[in-house]
């Protein structure tokens, strides 16, 4: 696995900026006028009580939802109407709150699928499966094996993911996202439903990804301990609106945040 190439943004500069984004479904306002940015190589957490619009925010960032208002600029390009695969092409990968793996495929194939965008041999080479197509397949298998090694899932590489326990499924999903060599990795509650040990493992992987490959990470997580440990900066959403944006320590002391978590009426 290599550090993502082709990115023109230097570490510490703004990689993605969200400006005045609003999103509503029918009459329900999921996100109201939220702005924040994500800097290159940081771990950015998005937190908030249930229904705060965190997942919607990720969905907007990777093109699953189209915001009614606002601008999103990624790697210096402001995009208008975008589909998830455009986001993927741009270098955004993500994982889901409820594991969204390809259940009919093995862990290995799932992660290989993550490399779809990096593979370029055309149809006919693949039909013949000789020469360049084979070389390409080998090359990417090698990359994928490095990820498997990294995530310590060697023992399950050929197991259909449907049969894996939840914690391992989450790991495979992370592997699939890593296989894309993204500039920005969106993690939607990567530790939901895990036990302590699994959480520790996952935290370690997240830190390692960030440190080893310099991947920028945006993270939604409920476990405050994890958030405070991992993240460089935290955005706090409540009822679709941003109520704080600061370092973990500052956020912890922010009265608005405390109120939101304690459920003080608005």
């Amino acid at each position, binding site marked *: 696995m290599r550090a993502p190439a082709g990115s023109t943004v230097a570490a510490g500069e703004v990689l993605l900026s969200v400006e005045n984004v609003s999103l509503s479904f029918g009459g329900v306002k999921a996100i109201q006028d939220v702005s924040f940015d994500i800097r290159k190589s940081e771990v950015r957490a998005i937190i908030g009580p249930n229904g705060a619009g965190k*997942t919607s925010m990720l*969905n907007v960032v990777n093109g*699953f939802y189209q915001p009614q208002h606002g601008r999103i600029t990624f790697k210096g390009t402001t995009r208008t109407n975008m589909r998830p695969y455009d986001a993927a092409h741009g270098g955004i990968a993500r994982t*889901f709150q409820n594991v*969204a793996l390809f259940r009919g495929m093995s862990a290995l194939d799932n992660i290989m699928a993550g490399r779809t965008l990096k593979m370029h041999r055309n149809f006919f080479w693949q039909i013949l499966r000789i020469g360049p197509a084979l070389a390409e397949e080998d090359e990417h298998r090698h990359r994928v094996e490095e990820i498997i090694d990294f995530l310590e899932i060697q023992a399950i590489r050929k197991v259909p993911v449907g049969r894996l326990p939840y914690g391992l499924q989450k790991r495979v999903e992370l592997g699939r996202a890593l296989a894309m060599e993204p500039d920005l990795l969106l993690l939607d509650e990567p530790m939901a439903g895990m036990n302590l040990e699994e959480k520790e493992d996952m935290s370690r992987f997240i830190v390692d990804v960030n440190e080893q490959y310099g991947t920028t990470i945006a993270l939604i997580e409920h476990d405050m301990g994890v958030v405070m440990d991992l993240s460089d900066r935290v955005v706090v959403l409540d009822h679709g609106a941003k109520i704080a944006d600061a370092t973990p320590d500052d956020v912890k002391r922010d009265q608005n945040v405390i109120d939101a978590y304690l459920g003080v009426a608005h």
Partner: protein
Amino acid sequence: MLGPILETLIGGLLTGVLYALVALGFVLIFKASGVFNFAQGAMVLFAALSVARLSEKFPLPIAIVLAIGVMIVLAYAIEFLVLRRLVNQEGIVLFMSTLGVAYFLEGFGQTLWGSDIYKIDLGISKNPIFLFESVFPGGILIDPEEVAAAVICAILVTVLAVFFQVTRVGRALRAVADDHQAAQSVGIPLNYIWLVVWATSGIVAIAAGMIWGSKLGVQFSISLVALKALPVLILGGLTSIPGAIVGGLIIGAGEKLAEILLGPLLIRWFDLAGGGIENWFAYVLALLFLLVRPQGLFGERIIERI
């Protein structure tokens, strides 16, 4: 030209009611058990054969009652032998199993009841009625048989609607349709509900079978009318009873009008060997419609969540 068009429209709408009747059986089962029941056509054949052969021995009303009994036994057999053993399988597997059931029923029905042509006599005049002869030359033709079918269909739909809305079983049924697991967790016996819908759908099949049987004679080809109900289904939405009715009307009218109006044009333009476009036209109509509304006319909106 208006006269013929109007006449075609009316004829089409009335035929559409018949399609709707078959589609209704599909919808009932799909709604309650998620099974795309391809055996509906075979059930119609089986029902029609039962009524026809029983009516040779008994008066028609008794034959119908007996046939209802037969269909309930059949529903029980299907539920017990097939569906119960395929719980929690994917939709496509259930769909295939109903294809198997269809094969079985076609063979079984003909073994049990014979494979000749049999009659069902509903005592409705077959001679056409001509309306508005003064307005349009030749009048507007109405087939009394089809009118009768429409009436029966209307009654059946009303009864079903009442059944669904008012009775306890109906409510349970709707609950199951909404969410299997939830319904089960509040103690609704799933197997029983399935039995009820399959039996209901069997009774609908009797109605459809009798009307088609009286029109065509009861024989094997009746099972093929199921194919005519498919575009109706997707047009109306797989889960919607009103959808089946409205879809049936649209398809019935649409295909007949297309055959009469578009057919000759196509023949002229492309030098075709005859028209006969109504077979695919219904599907293409449904397809075009789906492109606009992928879940059908009254189908539940598919909301993608992640």
